[in-house]
């Protein structure tokens, strides 16, 4: 959406920007996509306006647009994080039953969610840290159970602790295997055989990825570098 941002050299990219740009490549024209709050919501910045992509927020608009100019906010038009948004031409208001009907019924092409842990089975944990942080699952469990593709967008490690682990120690969000994990260091595809490394981050070596990952990673031949920016 922002040509200025899109042309910045990749050397200047923050981890989050690398992740958002790489996830944006997964989104094809005409898709219906749900972006979680936080990092996943940044993905919208790297989708061309004319791609015919519709963004859905679980609180009830299909056809979410960018943040409005100051003074043009509508208190009845926010994203799932409560931030002001706009509606694109062709948008539709829906209630929560229709919103989750679309999510659970398999009508959503893709969801992009943050993660606390993903394990070798491809299972995601992202809604609580027992005894520490209990925000609740919100729509995450339905999104992971129902969307056609589930993409986890997260920084590779949390203060040095690996987030891609042999087996999730945190409560799961769903048993379903997620479709893709995108971090600033790697793109990893969970498969029936395990976690397959499909791309390296800009300037990142396979060794570095393996060192920062406690899960077993399948490396099959040459691993290409992400092409972003």
């Amino acid at each position, binding site marked *: 959406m922002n040509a200025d941002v899109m042309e910045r050299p990749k050397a200047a990219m923050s981890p989050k920007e690398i992740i958002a740009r790489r996830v944006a490549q997964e989104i094809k024209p005409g898709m219906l996509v749900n972006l979680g709050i936080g990092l996943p919501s940044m993905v919208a910045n790297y989708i061309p306006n004319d791609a015919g992509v519709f963004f859905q927020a679980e609180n*009830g608009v299909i056809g979410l647009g960018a943040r409005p100019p100051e003074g043009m906010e509508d208190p009845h038009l926010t994203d799932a994080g409560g931030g002001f948004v706009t509606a694109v031409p062709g948008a539709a208001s*829906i209630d929560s039953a229709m919103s989750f009907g679309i999510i659970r019924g398999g009508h959503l092409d893709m969801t992009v969610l943050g993660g606390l842990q993903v394990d070798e089975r491809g299972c995601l944990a992202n809604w609580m840290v027992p005894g520490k942080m209990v925000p609740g699952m919100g729509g995450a469990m*339905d999104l992971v159970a*129902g969307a056609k593709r589930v993409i986890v967008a997260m920084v590779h490690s949390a203060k040095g602790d690996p987030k891609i682990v042999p087996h999730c120690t945190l409560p799961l969000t769903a048993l379903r295997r997620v479709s893709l994990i995108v971090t600033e260091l790697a793109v990893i595809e969970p498969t029936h055989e395990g976690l397959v490394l499909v791309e390296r981050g800009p300037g990142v070596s396979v060794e570095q990825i393996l060192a920062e990952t406690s899960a077993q990673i399948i490396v099959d031949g040459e691993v290409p570098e992400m092409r972003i920016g």
Partner: protein
Amino acid sequence: MRKAIHPEDAAALIPDGAVVLIGGFMGVGTPERLIDAMVARGVRNLTFVANDAAMPGKGIGKLVTAGCVARAIVSHIGLNPEIQQKMISGEIAVELVPQGTLVERIRAGGVGLGGVLTATGIGTPVEDGKQTIEVDGKRYLVEKPIKGDFALIAAQHADYAGNLEYSLTAHNFNPIMALSGHIVIVEPEMIVPIGVISPDAVKTPGVLVDHMLTRAA
């Protein structure tokens, strides 16, 4: 035909200990003036069912701050540190429900279904203690219907027959909760004469609505 009532008169209808369904998503589409009147009246021991607890100073957050709440059935409390604290201290019992399951449980209560069969939550702590059922070889949780003694909802327009219209992301749980409260109280932003809302524009038929609040002064 129904007359609009003042927020304090509506709040007086809601006794201590009531189960109230409250519309809104992070405070958007919540009946704020009604909540203010409930806080002013000092209602106690409420069980509220809602998507979230909003944030301190907004919507349901005001009920939490004022100590009106004993129990909450919600999908998310991440933006309200107060309810998280009160949950940890034991002052408020919190039941977390996946958002899509929550709205279907409320709908099931309102439309007379015996429960909801969903795959959401299978293999997670949400499954704990719940009945499951296999249909055509796939396993589902049996999630129970939810009904409220009251549904407290917000709408954009009402007419004097009680018909309601909602706006943009202020729809959220409101139209579903209108089905599931034993007594339904709506706070419309505007009330228009009967006939002004086209039958095709009505999202909640007036026959479901028991009381509506006067417009803000």
